[in-house]
């Protein structure tokens, strides 16, 4: 049995401590917005926050997580997070599969670096988008930064 705090709620889950956080979120807690892409922390489709920092949940043993976990479902209740608003305004997603991870990575970047440069984005966000939505996502990150400053 392990205990996780996810999106503000405490969960006791009957799994072994080395069960990857990704699959515990998806299959035990039903939070399927977090996606499986590679299983080796390369693509970032599984990005969630632990205490506001981005982690790649496919390689994190669920039992090792002590902090508060936020998934895409918990980022906002109504798409009102500046990153979601900006993504909507730029119509960024294509297939959408990597987008939860991209949005979580962008939100974490803005927490750390409220006004990121292009170089900051290039360095800090290494999530893969096979559809190639990078141009719109980059615009959206700058837009989100501006929205957050106004808020």
């Amino acid at each position, binding site marked *: 049995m392990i205990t996780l705090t996810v999106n503000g709620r405490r969960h006791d889950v009957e799994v072994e401590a080395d069960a990857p956080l990704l699959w515990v979120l998806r*299959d035990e807690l039903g939070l399927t917005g977090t996606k499986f892409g590679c299983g080796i922390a390369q693509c970032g489709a599984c990005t969630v926050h632990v205490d506001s920092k981005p982690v790649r949940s496919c390689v994190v043993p669920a039992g090792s997580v002590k902090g508060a976990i936020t998934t895409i479902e918990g980022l906002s209740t109504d798409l009102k997070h500046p990153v979601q608003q900006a993504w909507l305004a730029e119509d960024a997603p*294509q297939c959408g599969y990597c987008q939860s991870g991209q949005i979580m990575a962008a939100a974490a970047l803005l927490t750390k670096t409220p006004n990121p440069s292009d170089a900051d984005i290039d360095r800090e966000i290494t*999530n893969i988008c*096979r559809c*190639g939505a990078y141009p719109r996502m980059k615009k959206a990150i700058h837009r989100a930064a501006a929205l957050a400053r106004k808020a």
Partner: protein
Amino acid sequence: MTPMTLMQASALSRRSVVFAGLSAAGGLVIGVPMPAKAGIQPAILAAGANPTKEMTAFLVIEPDNSVTIRIPHAEMGQGTSTALAMMVAEELECDWSKVRIEYASANRNARAGGKLYEGMRTVGSRGVRTSVKLMQQAGASARERLRVAAAQGWNVDAADCTVASGKCLHSASNRSVEYGALAAAAAAVQLPQEPGIRAPRDYRLVGKWTPRLDTAVKLDGSAKFGIDAQVPGMVYAAVWSTPVAGGSLKAVDESGLKALPGLLGVVKLKDSVVVVADKYWRAKKGLDALKIQWDAAGQGGVQQADLDKGLRDALDGPMFTAEKKGEPEAAFAAPGAKLVEATYEAPFLSHSPMEPLNCTVQLAPDRVDVWISTQAPMAVLETAAKETGVAPENIYVHNAFVGGGFGRRGGAPDELLHAIAAAKAVGRPVKLIWTREQDIRGGRHRPQAAVRFKAALDAAGQPSVFQARVAVPSLLKPGPQTSVASEPMAVECIAGSFYAFPSRDIGVLLKNSHVPVSFWRGVGSSQNGFFVESFIDEMAHAADQDPLAFRRTLLAARPDALGVLDALATKGDWGKPLPKGRGRGLAIIEAYGSVSGQVVEVTVAKDGKLSVDRVTCALDCYHVANPNTVAQQMEGAVIMGLTAALWGEITIKDGAPVQTNFHNYRMARFADAPPRIDVHLTPSGGEVWGGVGEPGLGPLAPALANAIFAATGKRVRRLPLSHADLSWA
């Protein structure tokens, strides 16, 4: 409602989404909410499942005037679902802000003999262009029924009634009625004949920049992909297939599984092993603990260098003549003819969509349900029928949002076969998910290819003859054989070229190996575009002509292509001087019914370090459904083309792919994306619509290679570019 009941309601609706797939006519709902200013609307739950309420097989109009449009093509990012909904709404004259989308039911299509929603296969950039008339007609036929129903209700002449923004109007009596109140009556209206559809010049919605209908659900994790299917009682499976394609399973040592909790079974197939467990990570752990011996079917000694040499050697052997025109031999022998020759090569590529292949199946004696992200739901349905013996009309395919396809999900559904075998073995519903390693190692790759070109330039520097010898595996005839034959994909952009070559001689050899190949975004144009457009650049330089001017002369009879070239020249700053080490390259292809061109601008440092500074795209697809999603397709094709050009290759060692995951099959990331990608659409109209999903890919690699030549004087004739030394002094 208290916050708690709201939460419960939300949880309930999520469950309903899951179970909706089990209803009579099948089909998981895809997307829905409009990005309304007030927030998100709840997801609609019906899925082509409520024929009693529907107006036609293509749409449901609810009493609240919301319109649910059924989309017969897969949404895998290309925006087809929004574009096709726009086609219906164009004719229906409904309130666009109340439009929702869902998948059309493959099961219902099967019951209608495959004729109701046509083929439902989303391949070949055909989603919009082959369904324009179908969807417009669906909208027009519904609108007419609504109009007639309103007239009958008022007891007036239908000719005196008009429609606008979701209402029928009778101006003489100043009465109006909303569609929502008319839908039931309209469904019963018999028309003496179906109405005609609008000509493109009369479009009001189609052609306007329109936000996608599926964006909002992709921002909060609520969009359901195939991998998100949940079926009561389901268990999980992981699979490993033979690393050497065509090989088979020899022996499995299961001793490592003794301590594995939740293990339900190890299923041995001819060429695969499936581990089934109560949790996915346990199934995966079990898979990793197996010691598997494979029989490589005699292919275990095949190396990439052998395959490369095989294709190059084939260029000197017998070939099938795919095109012959004019007098090639005479043109080559003409006095003063200047010969240009070059050989080009391109590697195997993996599709690797972000959503790994996966499939969930539930088997019953007289019914099969399949949850899958697919480009070809009818093929899934037929395969499931064949594998289970259940009649096609009792197979329910619940297509979901597709997390990238690029051709991988358009053909043989390998993952379906694995899932059915697993479900049969354990007698429970099974969700089977491929690992990324299985995806890349078990891929059906973009064909490797080699082409040798030879051309002659006349005294004016104009090409008098164009010769190509193509060696490439067959996409249509799998197997290890070599055929002196051709197929359209092998010679895309080469045979029937839009360039005015007076004489042509195009030969093809379809040379297969044991490595399985399949359609990859852009198909033949993805590698042939690189070959031809690099060679055209070589011809232009040999003729001492500007590459754009050279192409202009050869395309003088093609106003569509000239329009694309003009856009590229103006918007891409063609001809503006750049210092040594920087350069621009151009490429233009005709593919999937469209003309697509790009100008790439690069900087190459003296040590060979390459940066792609800017890409300008121009596309003539004749008619544009939604400029927003067309631009997205161009932007995305540039990135995907860049990944392929810079690093993309599957290398065969000892018969098997060397690459296994994204650490050694590299993908472009933010840092690799060009700082600027501009898209210019130059639709020139006419009868026929062009494709959009694929034409953007082919020009990137040659425009990039041509830019590198302009910057450094170095000609790259083999992809990926990572093998090339681009340093200069």
